[in-house]
C-alpha cells in the first residue's frame, strides 16, 4: 500500500485506463473515430448477449429432449458421453472458418458455431442426470401406471434438474466467453475491441476482457440462483451428497467396478 503512494504501478494503471475506456469515449488508436464509452459498450454487450442467448436457447431445444430421451431409454451412452469430448476437441474458431463455406460471414455462422459448442455439456449432463435417477422411483412410477412421457416429465426431469442445470451453466459460460470470436465472421460483439486491438488499443482489449469475464460470472451466478429456486425442496437440505454425485457419473462407476478382485 505504502509503495504506491505516488504513481500507481503499471498493472493498476492499465486497469484504471481500461475502466475509463468502458465509461468515456476516446479517439481510436488509428485516429478519426471515437471508440469506447458506455454507449458503444452497451451496444456491443447487447449484441454479445443476444448471440449467446440464441445459441444457448437453440442448444437447449436440441440437447434437452435428446438427452432426456436417450437417458430414459438408456441408449446412446456412447453418443451422449463422447459428445462432450468431441465438442471440446473441435475449436470454435475452426467451425467458424468451416461454416463460412456454407453460411458465409455473419450472425448465422457464429450462431451455428456457438450452438455446436453449447450442445455437448447440456446433452451429457442431461443424459447422466437422467441415468442417475433412482431406478426404484422410475420402476414404481411405471408400475403405478404412468405413461413413458409422464415418467420423463414427472419423475426423471425433476430428479435430474440439478445435473441438467450444471450442463446449462457450463454451456453458458463457454458460449459467453467464446462469443468474442464474433468479429472474425463480422458480427459485432464484445470481442470487437479484443480482436481489433490495433483500433481500440490496449485499454479497449483489457476493458472488453474484463466485461466478458464479469458477464460470465454474473450469468453463472444467476443460473445458480435459478437452479436452487427450481430444485424441489425434497431434494435440498441433504448436504452430504458426495456418494450420490459420484453415483451419477458413469465413468467413475466403471472405474470402481474394474478394480482387480
Amino acid at each position, binding site marked *: 500500500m505504502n509503495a504506491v503512494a505516488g504513481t500507481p504501478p503499471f498493472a493498476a494503471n492499465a486497469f484504471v485506463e481500461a475502466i475509463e475506456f468502458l465509461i468515456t469515449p476516446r479517439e481510436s488508436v488509428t485516429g478519426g473515430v471515437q471508440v469506447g464509452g458506455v454507449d458503444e459498450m452497451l451496444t456491443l454487450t447487447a449484441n454479445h448477449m443476444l448471440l449467446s442467448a440464441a445459441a444457448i436457447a437453440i442448444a437447449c431445444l436440441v440437447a434437452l429432449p435428446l438427452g432426456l430421451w436417450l437417458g430414459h431409454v438408456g441408449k446412446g451412452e456412447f453418443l451422449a458421453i463422447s459428445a462432450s469430448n468431441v465438442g471440446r476437441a473441435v475449436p470454435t474458431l475452426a467451425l467458424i472458418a468451416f461454416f463460412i463455406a456454407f453460411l458465409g460471414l455473419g450472425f448465422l455462422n457464429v450462431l451455428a458455431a456457438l450452438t455446436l459448442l453449447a450442445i455437448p455439456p447440456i446433452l451429457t449432463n442431461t443424459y447422466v442426470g437422467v441415468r442417475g435417477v433412482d431406478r426404484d*422411483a422410475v420402476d414404481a412410477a411405471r408400475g*403405478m401406471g404412468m405413461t413413458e412421457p409422464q415418467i420423463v416429465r414427472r419423475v426423471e426431469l425433476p430428479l435430474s434438474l440439478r445435473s441438467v442445470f450444471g450442463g446449462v451453466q457450463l454451456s453458458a459460460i463457454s458460449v459467453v466467453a467464446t462469443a468474442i470470436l464474433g468479429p472474425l465472421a463480422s458480427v459485432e460483439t464484445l470481442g470487437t475491441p479484443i480482436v481489433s486491438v490495433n483500433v481500440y488499443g490496449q485499454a479497449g482489449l483489457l476493458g472488453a476482457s474484463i466485461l466478458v469475464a464479469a458477464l460470465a460470472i454474473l450469468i453463472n451466478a444467476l443460473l445458480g440462483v435459478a437452479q436452487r429456486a427450481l430444485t424441489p425442496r*425434497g431434494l435440498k437440505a441433504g448436504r452430504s451428497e458426495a456418494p450420490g454425485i459420484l453415483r451419477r457419473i458413469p465413468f467413475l462407476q466403471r472405474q470402481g467396478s474394474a478394480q482387480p478382485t
Partner: protein
Amino acid sequence: MADQHRQAAVVEFDHVTKRYDAPTGRDKGKPTPGAVNDLSMKVPAGKICILVGPSGCGKTTTMKMINRIIEPTSGTIRLQGEDVTGSPPDELRRRIGYVIQQVGLFPHLTIADNVATVPRLLRWDGSRTRARVDEMLDLVGMDPSIYRGRYPKELSGGQRQRVGVARALAADPPVMLMDEPFGAVDPIAREKLQNEFLRLQEDIGKTIVFVTHDIDEAIKMGDRIAVLRTGGKLAQYASPAELLMYPADEFVEDFVGADRALKRLALQRVRDIDLWTAATVRSGEPVAEARRKIAEADIDIPLVVDDHGRPQGWLSERGLAGERVRPELRSRAEPLVELDDVLRDALADLIESEVHYSPVVDPDGCLAGVLSLEVISQSLHVPPERARTSTELVEPAGDDAVSAEIEPA
C-alpha cells in the same frame, strides 16, 4: 373409511410361459433365470398369495406379468375374468397396486403428493384426492397432519414402506402386487410391518400377490403359497398348513426346511387342538369327591382353582390326607398358557419352565384345559396316507372361477 369397498378380484394364470434367450457360453444348458414354465393357478379374491422360491425361479417375473411390466411369451392372465392384455398397460396398472422392496417413493414430492400419484393419474378432483390421501395415511397409522407435507428423506425406512403401501392403495385397486416389500427393513421393523399389514388386510380384503424368498414370511403372511422351482415350474400351490404337512416332493420338502414340523406349530393355536382335562378341586371340598374327579381326568394331579375357576396351583398329596381338601400346593399353576397363544409360543413356555404340562386359560382367566408336550406332539402327527398327495391341489385355472378354498384331495 368412507369408500372402503373391500373390492377384490380373482387373478388367474392360464398356461403362462415366459421364455428368455437361453444362456450361452459358460452357462449353456443351465435354466434361464426368471423364466416361467407353463404356470396355471388361481388366486382367490381377497386372499394373500405368496410366490416363493429360490432366486431365479421366476417368482418376480410371474408377479410382473400381472401388470404387464413383463409380457408373457404365451398363455393368458385374467383379472376377474378379464384378459390383462385387453387394456393398455398404463390403464391396467392404475387398477393394480404396486409395492416394491426399495419403495421407490418420489424424493422430490411430499408424502401427500406421493400418495396422490394414482388418483391424479386418474384425474380425480382435488378435494376427493386430498380426502383420500388423509384417509390412506390414517389407514397405515401415520398422522396426516404431521406427515402430509414431509418429504421421503425425512422418514425412517419403516415409515417409507408404510407410505408405499398407502400410495399403492390410494385408488382402491382390487389387486395389489408386492415385491419383497419388507425385505429392506431390519428384522424388528419387518415383524412389526408384517403384523400391521395382516391387520390392514383384514380391513381392506384385497387380492394380494406377494413375492418373497423367505419361507417363514411366506408361511406367516400367506393364505396360499405357490412354491416355484428353478426353471419357473410351479412345485406346489397350497395353504401354509398343507405345504408344511404334505410337501409335494423333495424339492418343496427341502425348501420349507427340515424344521417344517416346528414351523407348523406357528400356524396352530392352543384352542385348535384337543387339550387334556384335569380334576379341579376347591379348598374345603370333600376329598372323596375330589378323588372321584381325579379318576376321570387325564392327569393324576388335581388343580386347585378359586371361586371363579381361575387355576391356583397343583395340589400336593398331603392336601388330600384329611376329610376335606386342604390347599397345600406342590407347585404354582405356571406357566399359564392362553387359548389364543400359537403352539410354538406355548411350547416355548413349557420348555422354559421345564414342565411337561401346564394349565390353559381362556381370556377371562378361567381354566380351559391342560396343554402337555404329548398333546402338542399328537397335533403334529401326520396321517401317513395323506402325505405326498398334494400335487393334486394345483388345480388349473378353470371354469369355477371363484372357488375360494382349495381343499386337499
